Each structure stands twice: as structure tokens, then as C-alpha cells.
């Protein structure tokens, strides 16, 4: 069985809606775009769609994913990926844009299981460039980094050092820096905000943007859908 995978954005004001709201928007979007999504059986049928890793409310993203379950006939009768992407893009609200669509087999791992790391762009303030470089070097020269996290009502101390794959300064500002950091998602997602707060409590994160969600293929981490293959001009994003 096949499903349609869509990579989409969540930027601007709409970053303040929650994950459940995003799911509801997708249900309406598919109806608006006339995509004949399959429905679950049972007492209260609902459209069969599944999402990648949940994005915390308030974070922006250029790499959200949704898998849409469709009948086989959808992919045979003149399937036109570009056209479908455009229809979906038109039906999405401001701030959400369909960047790419692709066909995946449902026998593959679900998105949530497949994703191994995320690349984040984080605007940090309250620190000068030199200070940040030192903070970063201290982090990478350390062997471990313990973080307290709540899990099912219990406070756990976990070493997350191995989950920090990279952290680089992308841009320098008068009051801080913009960094790019790749953080592992297993066994549990490491949020950039939690990491930064842990390594220096003075750091303030102003804006967080997910750039990529990467899956493992052999030794390589790759995007589930590359935007370059199938670019779409994003609509104007307010604020």
C-alpha cells in the first residue's frame, strides 16, 4: 500500500497553534483540495493521516511531514505530484505551505519511528559571539551532559551529550547569535530550548525553526523528502 507524503512549513503567527490544531487543519485541507483520503473503520471514522515528530507550540518549521493514506487508484490514474502539491498548498492556511510531495510505501517505518535527528535554527540572545563560542567549545569537549527530564511524572536524569551532533554559528548579531544545531531524537527528542537552558541559564532563545528532520539510511542521515527535487514558491508569510 502506498501513501502520499507531504513536506510542509509552519511559519509566522500560525506557529502558536498546537499539534491537534494542525491535525484538524489537515483534515479540512484534504477535503478542500479534494484528496480522497481513506477513512478508518469503526464507531467514529476519521481520515487516515499520520504525522512526523510533533513540533512544540511556538516553534517554526520548514520540515513538517504528513503521510496521507489513499487508495491505489489515486496513484495510477494520471498522478501528477506537482498539481497535487499546488492544490494542497492553496488549501492550507497562511504560514503553512506544501513544499514537496512524494509517494512512500506504507511498509516503511512510520515517520515518527524513522526520524533520527532534527536540524534546528535557533536565534539566541543575551550572549556575545565570543561567549557563545566558548559555551559551544566547552560542550563539545565534555564527555557527558546530564539533563533532568520529567517522564511519566518521574524526574529522570539522562545523559544527552551523544544526541548533540553539531552546533554552529550561522549568523552573528549585536545581541546574540543564530545557530544551526543537529540534535538526535532517540531515545527521546532533545529540544534545542532545553539543551541551551541546560548549558547556560543566561541564554535566551528568541525564535526556533526546524530546518530538517533526518532519517537514517545506512550511515547517512537524509531528508524524507528533499525540497530541491520539487520546489514550491512559498506564499508570503505574515509576521
Amino acid at each position, binding site marked *: 500500500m502506498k501513501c502520499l507524503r507531504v513536506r510542509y512549513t509552519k511559519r509566522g503567527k500560525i506557529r502558536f*497553534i498546537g499539534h491537534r490544531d494542525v491535525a484538524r487543519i489537515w483534515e479540512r485541507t484534504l477535503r478542500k483540495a479534494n484528496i480522497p483520503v481513506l477513512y478508518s473503520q469503526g464507531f467514529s471514522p476519521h481520515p487516515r493521516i499520520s504525522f512526523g515528530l510533533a513540533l512544540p507550540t511556538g516553534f517554526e518549521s520548514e520540515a513538517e511531514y504528513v503521510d496521507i493514506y489513499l487508495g491505489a487508484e489515486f496513484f495510477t490514474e494520471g498522478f501528477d505530484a506537482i498539481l497535487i502539491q499546488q492544490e494542497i498548498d492553496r488549501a492550507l492556511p497562511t504560514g503553512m505551505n506544501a513544499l514537496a510531495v512524494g509517494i512512500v510505501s506504507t511498509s516503511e517505518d512510520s515517520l515518527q519511528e524513522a526520524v533520527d535527528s532534527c536540524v534546528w535554527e535557533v536565534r539566541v540572545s543575551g550572549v556575545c559571539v565570543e561567549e557563545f563560542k566558548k559555551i559551544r567549545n566547552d560542550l563539545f569537549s565534555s564527555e557527558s551532559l546530564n539533563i533532568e527530564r520529567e517522564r511519566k511524572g518521574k524526574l529522570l536524569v539522562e545523559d544527552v551529550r551523544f544526541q548533540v551532533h553539531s552546533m554552529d554559528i550561522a549568523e552573528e548579531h549585536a545581541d546574540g547569535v543564530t545557530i544551526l544545531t543537529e540534535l538526535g531524537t532517540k531515545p527521546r527528542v532533545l529540544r534545542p530550548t532545553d539543551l541551551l537552558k541546560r548549558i547556560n541559564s543566561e541564554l535566551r532563545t528568541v525564535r526556533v525553526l526546524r530546518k530538517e528532520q533526518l532519517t537514517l539510511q545506512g550511515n547517512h542521515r537524509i531528508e524524507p523528502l528533499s525540497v530541491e527535487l520539487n520546489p514550491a514558491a512559498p506564499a508570503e508569510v505574515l509576521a
Partner: protein
Amino acid sequence: MSSLWNELEQFLDDVEKPARYIGGEDGMIAPEHSPEKASWLLIYPDTYEIGLPNQGLQILYEILNERDDSTAERSYAPWVDMSREMRKRKIPLFSVDTHRAAGEFDILAFNLSAELVYTNLLECLDLSDVPLYSKERNAKHPIVIAGGHCTYNPEPVADFIDLAVLGDGEEVVGEISEIFSHWKSKPEKELDRSELLKELAELPGVYIPSLYEATFSNGRLVSISPKLQENIANVVEKRTISDLGAWPYPKNQLVPLTEVVHDRLNVEIFRGCTRGCRFCQAGMITRPVRERPREQIVSMVEKGLKRTGYDEVSLTSLSSADFSGIENVISEVMTQDSCSPVSVSLPSLRVDAFTVDTASQMQQARKTGLTFAPEAGTWRLRQVINKLISDDDLFAAVESAYSQGWRRVKLYFLIGLPTETDEDTLGIVDLAEKTLEIGRKYHKNPSVTVSVGGFVPKPGTPFQWFGQNTEQELLRKIYLLRDAAKKIKGLKLKWHDSRATVVEGILSRGDRRLAPVLEKVWKEGGVFQEWSEHFNIDLWKNAMQQEGLSIEDFSYRHREQGEVLPWDHLSAGLHKDFLWQDWRDALNNQGLEDCRWTPCYDCGACTGYGIEHVVASAVPPAGGSQGTGVAALQSSETMVLISQTGTANNLQTSGVNE
């Protein structure tokens, strides 16, 4: 005007449900502000989730933005965590459309649909940096308008608002915009607020409280009339649009980005109701019945579903099963070309088997629960309140529901109704028990939820003279019900907080002496009083006491025939002597049939304004016995059943007598 968004986005992460404040709904209109236009901020003084779906507000939002001389944006009461942050950061109330400060608008228009939001009105004014009292505002401040059902007695908030609109707002908002934009074009030093208000007072349906004097003597209101020298109407008459078909609004219903109540397409199929339930203010003040043309309904549904992506449409009105040929409308709506199933709901089900059969076909997928509102436990009391449902109507309805797959039935009742005895109160449990017995024929464990609300007499109804039950009396009745319900398996009893009923009662029929009470309660933090987690009866009792006002006098006391009522100068068209006669009939257990299908009683709502019912069929609806002069069970009428298999629709007819 400038946007506050840059400041807001810095802390929206820190408040509960930030999506309440971002706007961005599908259907949002980018306003084109200009100095010549009257700019309206339409405010629903409750949370975004409650306020966003409000159809009245959305209708006016579109009408005002379509006009050349006005613009409109929207705002909702910020939740307590948000208002705390806003005050800390000196951020005023703002619109969700472009995040502009409320104080920059010309008109702040509040939708008042329930009394317990009155303190939120004060909160919103204060957050807008607008003086609370009308008399303290000058030409630089916005005009504060109230609309909605509460304006049939706006006296408790009369000192805080500049103007109230009675009745349908579709036409009058345009007239106000016209006068306002003309006034605004004058040189600044010539702008005189009181002159503007006097000019607005000449518009039918517009009430300017500051132009009327309320006189009290020995703790009683003795008169309320225009101040001397004011050449204005002694009685302000409501506005009524005669043809709903001329107003196909909202054309682009707002689709919120976050979850709200009634999160579905809503299409108003008629306005007004003449069932004549005596406790129901909406049914009295919105007369006559005006049906929307059937083709327009179908096209609004079709366009609406396509545009919004909703899979559910609600055909709204005060009693939707009464729409002429409702079964045909539903079947047309359900045959729409769509790739996913569409469900249709009628928000106010009539209590009869016909309605249940219709509902069964409409909600193919989700048979979660069905709600009926018999309102009173015995036939005698239902005649008093003119809700003419026989026990057999109810039993036929629940039999139909259980037999068609529903397991849960919800019954809604009022307690504290006029002439109510303990036998009537206990009749509620009796009906619920019999309902369960019917359910056991079809299911192993059927359930019935009984919801009980305390009755609050409302202005403009035949019960406006009735002394409300005291807090203790309502509690006693609740305990009576609780004890009786305990022994019955499958019966779940829920009740409304009788203390909130008390406060609603004070405000519902209150007068201008309540202004300082509202101010005190608000100052002590008494906002969101319709939310149980924030409601605080002590704030109200203390404030009443400090002002030397008694709850007994405002709520529990029976009014006399000759007594001046605080809303005597405001009219929904119904003659006071018609209402009084209906009140006397009620006390004699005398019902009154629906005037849509029987001769006119001359209540005043049609004759007074030279308008008529607009109904496509002069014949009572199939199966709807109540108040139609037709007994359903003896009727030989043919009932239409609608069923849908796949996308094909089969219309079948069958006899009604089961």
C-alpha cells in the same frame, strides 16, 4: 494605527492557548482603514473559543467591511493569564485581525448574549484604556455600543455603554456608520459627543441610556423616561429585518485555526420562533418567524462546505425541525457531491419521533448522544410554560432513538418554574426512569443523563413578573432530585450551580442601581463569572450589601401588574397586556398554540411593525404535535424518512403510527 504584534509575540509562548490571540482564520478580512471610515471593533466579551463562532458578530463583521464608510475587526476577552501579562507590559486590548489597540477604533461594539459576562465588559473597557463610565468619555474616546439579547434590559450596564441596539443588527449598523463617518469628517474642535449621540438616538432601534432618566422612590423604580427637553422616543422599538433571504450572511464563515465551540459550518435557516414557550426570551423577542429561501440554504451549505473543508453543517434556528419541509432540505444537503461523508445537525431537536428519525439519517456516523428538552416533569407544568409536549411524545421520541442505535439520551429540564410543586420536580425523575425502561427493550445498559438548570425569569417574556426561586429553594429541589435519582441504575443527574442562577437573576431584571455593584465585583477580580472556576458568589453578595441592595428585592419578589419595570421603555413589539394575559393563562395551566399555523393572537410583534411570518408552508410540520393543534399519535399524516446508502438517496414514505 499600528500593530502590537511584535510586542505580543514575545510572550505568547508563556500564556495558555496562545492561538486565541493570533487571528489568521480562513475568512478573515484585511481591513482597509482610512480616516473617513467609521472603524468598528466587534468584541465578544468571553474567550475566543466561545466568541469566535458567534454568528451575529460574524454577520456584522462582513456587512461592515463590505460598506464604503466602515471597517470592522474583532476582539475577544483575554483569559486571566493574558490580561495579567498585558497589564504588566502596558499592552492594551487589541484586535485579532491586525493586532491594533482597541483605543484606536471609533466604535467598540460588544455582543452581550448572557448577563454573567457584564464584568468582562468592564474588563475589556479598562484594558482598552477607555473610561468605564459613559459620562467620563470625551470626543477622543470610542463610542461604546452593546447589542445582543441582553439589550432588552441593558439597565445594569446603562452607565457604562453609550448606546444599545435592540433587535436585528444587519441594517442599523450601516445607519450608525453613516452618521458616525459624517460626524467624524467635521473639524476636530467641533466634534461634540453629545450631539452625535442625540443624532444616533433618532435611529429606530437605537437606545441611548444617558438621554433617559430613571427615578426611584422608596427603593423602587417609579419611572424611566426621556430627560426633559430631549425630543426622543418614549419607547425604543427593536429592529427587525423582514426578509432573511436579503441577508445571506455570513458569506465566508470564519474557520478558526484552533478548536472552538460549534466548530462546523453553521447556516441559519430561519430567525424567530412562535412556539411560545413562556420561559424562553429568545422565542419572544425574535418574532416573527422568517424562513430563509430553501434554494439559498442549499447554496450556502454547498459553497460553505467547499470553501471551509468542514464535514459537518448545522442548520441553525430556535427550532430547526419546524422549518417548512426540513426533510427535503436535509436530503438535498446530504446529496452534495463530496468525497467524504457530510453530517448535518439540528441544534434544537423537537421532542418527537419524527425528529429522531430525521436525526438518525443525518448523523450516520456519530450516534454519540441525543438531547431532548421537555423542560418540565409533568404535563400540567408543561402547559404552564407552554412547552406542549405530551409524555407520549417524549416516549415515542426515546423509543425511536434507542431502537435506532442510540444508547445515551440526555434530557434537559428547568427547575424553579412558576407554580412548580414537588410532584412536578419529582416528575423529572419519573420521566427519566420510564425513558430507561424503554431503553432496556433495546440495550443492556442504556443511560439517561438528566441536566437541570435553575429558571431565571427574563425581560420581555410572560414570566417577567415571576419571583425567582431562592438559592435555598433551588438547592432543596436539587437534593430532592438527587435522592430520588440515586436508586435508579443508568440515571445520571447533573445540575447547574444555583448560586450562579441567583446572580443571573439579579442582572437579568436589574436596573441602573447595579452599576456600582458590577464595578465592585470587577474591581475585586470577578471576571469570567460564567466560568465555574472563576465564579464567586461572595463578591456579588458583598457588593449588593455594600450598595444597600437586596437580592430578595431584585430576584425573589413577584412583580405586580402596575409596577414599572426597568425595561418598560424598550420594546420587542410584544404588547405588555398580551404578556400579562399570557402570564395569567400560564397560572391557569392554559397552553397557547403556535400562531404560525393558527390564527393571530395579536401579540404585537407582526402587527406593530407591519411585518408577517415568512414561512414556505402554512401546514404544521409532519409529526410535530406540540402546539400545532395536531396530536401526532392520532394523525394520519405521512412521514418522510430519509436514508442514504453510499451516495444514492432513497426517499421512502411510511406511515407514522407506530
